[in-house]
């Protein structure tokens, strides 16, 4: 019989089917596009430029409630207030004595100053912002008390685009998003198809099993483009993140990363028979990577003994490659070792998935 014009290659049809199912699922669109934007906006609000950081100083306003030397002096409180009020970087809060521990714990104030002569500082020395607050307050009070500086250094503010936390963060979020959208999308759709016995039906047809798994990867790529473009564009245009690498290199890194996490998603979904089981497998796979792989803070915070493991994880490789290409303008050759690590993960997990996959 003649091949009819409306018959396309199975990989094309399978990829189209996957894509259609995906775009017809409103929740999927939310997680892929809206969520990263909401996340970026929230972070932009939470982490404004470092220059505008304020020091929040609490003043206990109930003199006499404590049996400490000097607190009986009500005039000391007024003097203290006057000395700190004029300082630009300082915001003052009144703190009642009973609330001191709570506001420090919650980070509502960075330091508490107890009026007196001399005043008392209460702060948590383990917190960077508290140590900074101590310096700022100490400087302001001593200056008000008449300290004379022997000299004043000349200051040259240097603002380097790309050195802000938000600039560092966005590529990490991008990497995390490529991981989670890929793995959740693949994992759930496959386990659902297994539950509905659709996989069994497909396996009973002449469909090549590798075609099915490959088409999951290909369909994943089609919805990768907008998913990467939206947060990247938002970061560059709204938040002013520099994009120094070529768009082609960035795209290449994203595509390789997406392949990797589709492979891992296929492997994760190769056996589970219930949605609960696949959720567990995905969480166990992804949550450690959120923590270890430099999404919110640098992976170098972990001790050297952890580093070999951390460097071997695919999300570390993807995040490092994205940061190097986006923020430093690295070429693909310069992130070659990361890309090789990603490719190895992609190939090995795909082949394992093909071998372990349960069709019924």
């Amino acid at each position, binding site marked *: 019989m003649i091949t009819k014009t409306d018959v*396309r290659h199975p990989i094309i049809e399978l990829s189209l089917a996957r894509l259609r199912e995906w775009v017809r699922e409103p929740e999927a669109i939310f997680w892929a596009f809206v969520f990263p934007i909401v996340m970026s906006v929230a972070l932009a609000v939470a982490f404004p430029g470092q220059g505008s950081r304020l020091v929040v100083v609490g003043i206990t306003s109930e003199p006499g409630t404590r049996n400490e030397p000097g607190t009986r002096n009500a005039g000391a409180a007024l003097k203290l207030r006057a000395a700190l009020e004029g300082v630009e970087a300082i915001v003052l809060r009144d703190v009642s004595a009973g609330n001191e521990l709570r506001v420090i714990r919650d980070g509502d104030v960075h330091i508490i100053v107890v009026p007196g002569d001399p005043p008392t500082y209460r702060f948590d020395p383990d917190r960077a912002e508290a140590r900074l607050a101590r310096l700022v307050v100490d400087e302001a009070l001593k200056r008000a008390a008449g300290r004379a500086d022997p000299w004043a250094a000349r200051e040259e503010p240097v603002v380097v685009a790309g050195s802000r936390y938000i600039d560092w963060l966005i590529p990490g979020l991008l990497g995390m998003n490529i991981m989670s959208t890929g793995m959740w999308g693949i994992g759930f759709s496959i386990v659902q198809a297994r539950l509905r016995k*659709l996989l069994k039906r497909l396996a*009973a*047809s002449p469909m090549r099993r590798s075609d099915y798994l490959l088409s999951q990867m290909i369909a994943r790529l089609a919805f990768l483009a907008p998913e990467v473009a939206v947060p990247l564009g938002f970061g560059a245009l709204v938040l002013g993140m520099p994009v120094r690498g070529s768009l082609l290199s960035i795209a290449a890194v994203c595509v390789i990363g997406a392949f990797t996490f589709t492979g891992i998603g296929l492997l994760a979904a190769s056996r589970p028979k219930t949605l609960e089981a696949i959720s567990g497998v995905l969480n166990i796979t992804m949550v450690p990577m959120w923590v270890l792989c430099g999404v919110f803070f640098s992976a170098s915070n972990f001790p050297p003994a952890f580093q070999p493991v951390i460097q071997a994880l695919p999300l570390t490789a993807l995040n490092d490659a994205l940061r190097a290409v986006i923020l430093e303008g690295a070429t693909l050759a310069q992130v070659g070792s990361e890309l090789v690590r990603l490719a190895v993960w992609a190939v090995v997990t795909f082949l394992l998935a093909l071998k372990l996959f349960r069709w019924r």
Partner: protein
Amino acid sequence: MSGVTESHAVRCAALHKRYGDVVAVDGLSLTVQRGECFGLLGPNGAGKTTTIEILEGILDPDAGDVEVLGLTWRTNAAELRQRLGIQLQDTQLADKLTVAETIRLFRAFYHRGQTVGELLRIVELEGKRDSWVNKLSGGQRQRLALACALAGAPDLLFLDEPTTGLDPQSRRQLWGVLERFRAAGGTILLTTHYMDEAQVLCDRVAIVDHGRVIALGTPQELIAKLTAPRVVTHHGTLEDVFMSLTGRHLRDNED
């Protein structure tokens, strides 16, 4: 491709299959001729589905020989997949694909076959062409599953309880599609626990119980074998045959 004298569409001998302690198929043998419609009739749990899935190459038997269209699963799986049409029990096709998209997908797996438009017409779903699968009635879903099974113009159609749960009108509509497939020379092996379905569609019926064939013949032969007018005061049915053989009703085991 097709063997020269391939009179048997299906032949299996001494099939055994157990799941743990449960013996699902216990030495079952049967032969289906080309061009006939053959029914496996029995209550739920009789081993019908296990048997048909072994013949479909989905399950491996613990013991026994299977030959389908003169080929074996061990050596000719790829060719067999191309020449068989399969409808499984309770497959749910993708909810958010349309009827035409679903058929087009299955059609893409086969080297030969009719167009999507022709398949839609055969199963009488032209009007539902662009409806999502989750908007279809039970009967329409079964006809869509049948269209997927027919997508490769199969020589042999395996159907596992094709009309379970359907209303009478939907069942008759589906029977019509199957009768036209037969008329065009196709072979069908189906399982059912509806004796009326077996009586309407099947040339021959094997009554299966506890993984074994306990009676085999045309529906008329089986009914005629009923000796006792004590059972049959009305016209005999396959239900009566089953009862006289086992002392149970066919649908006793239904949930």
